[in-house]
């Protein structure tokens, strides 16, 4: 274990995670939702790309064996373990108007750090720390949330999907700026009660030739080749 840290429900967080490190997101309550964005530390113009991630792997949900592609055909991180089974890459973030209409208006003056922060505002704060902003706010992943798309294309947030104690391991294949927000999913209903998460960073094992993420599909084999070329010296 390199370090661990708890992110309270509703809080946002960011850090640089180095290639080779495994970051565990651990749900400390039911119905956790962790919005996540990934940017190359070396060149933040290279960032997580939802469409390329879905197209390369023919998926509309993420779980063990899936990788998160950048827009440059490389792999920012791989999902090496997942006890949850389904993470939502489609639905994006909440904004301030949604949060206010769904949960009520709060302010720091009254509620102090228990105030409600939207996903968009949370990400704008974290991205701003790296010189990134609104134009860099691309489609994010919502970890621990399951959104099923029916035959007509309608989206349904699966109730009771996220359970206390579930975790997902992200093995970073590139030096990556990671921004997280432990806030409500945009399709969530009910009261405001975002779960806290624990972050744990460990040294990972480099992906072997038979790595489950590498061998999941020929596309991922090529994604790893592209990534390894960046770090060849």
């Amino acid at each position, binding site marked *: 274990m390199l370090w661990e840290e708890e992110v309270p429900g509703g809080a946002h967080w960011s850090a640089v995670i180095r290639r080779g490190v495994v970051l565990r997101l651990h749900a400390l309550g039911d119905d956790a939702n962790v919005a996540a964005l990934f940017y190359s530390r070396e060149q933040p113009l290279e960032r997580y790309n939802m469409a390329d991630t879905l197209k390369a792997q023919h998926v509309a949900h993420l779980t063990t064996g899936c990788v998160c592609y950048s827009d440059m055909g490389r792999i920012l991180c791989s999902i090496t373990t997942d006890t949850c089974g389904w993470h939502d890459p489609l639905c994006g973030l909440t904004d301030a*108007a949604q949060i206010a209409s769904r949960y009520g208006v709060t302010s720091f003056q009254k509620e102090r750090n228990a105030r409600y922060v939207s996903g968009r505002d949370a990400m704008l704060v974290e991205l701003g720390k790296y010189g990134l902003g609104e134009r860099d706010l691309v489609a994010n992943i919502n970890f621990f949330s399951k959104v099923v798309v029916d035959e007509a294309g309608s989206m349904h947030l699966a109730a009771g999907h996220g359970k206390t104690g579930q975790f997902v391991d992200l093995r970073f294949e590139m030096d990556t700026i990671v921004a997280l927000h432990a806030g409500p999913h945009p399709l969530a209903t009910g009261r405001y009660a975002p779960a806290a998460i624990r972050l744990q960073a460990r040294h990972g094992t480099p992906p072997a030739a038979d790595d489950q993420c590498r061998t999941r599909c020929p596309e991922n084999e*090529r994604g790893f080749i592209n990534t390894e070329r960046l770090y060849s010296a």
Partner: protein
Amino acid sequence: MNTANVIDEVVPAGEPWMGVVRRGQSFRIVDLEGNQAVDTLFYNAADTAEAYSAQNTIQAQRRIYLTTGTVLLSNRGNPMLRIEDDTCGRHDTLGGACSAESNTVRYALEKRHMHSCRDSFLLALARREQGGLTKRDLPSNINFFMNVPVTPEGQLRFADGISAAGRHVQMTALMDTLVLISNCPQLNNPCNAYNPTPIRVMTWDPA
């Protein structure tokens, strides 16, 4: 870039196109030969940091496909255009644009040299006289006339096209909108029968 009040142009496959649709104007894209992917982004013409948001759009309508009645929302949650007429039936906004780099992943490492939508987008932005738009301004786009279904099991499929020659999609602009199109040059994907074809773009003033 075309800033005339009324536009009527044919855009060949593999070419980008930019134009401004004024608030209240109609904007139509015609799939001239059928099943052509029209990769499209919209910006607030007065402040291009405000751009089309696929996530906000599908969130608001709780549905991933775009068709008549869909309001295309910006990253700031503002309505940009409304789809008024759609003889195709549905359009994709999850599949994104092809790029040289994603082609290496999806098809083969040696496909890097083939023309792609992102190359068209980048060239159009670089040529724009006002400047100011870069790779940062390329969020997830719309693929008009593309059929990219998601199954209840969470799989993404590239299904046979549901468009046909002469089908169109028509929108009304709810703000002054800068339109960026790449008429897709993808030669590796059966969804356009490996045959990229021209489209027609039209705008007109309200009657």
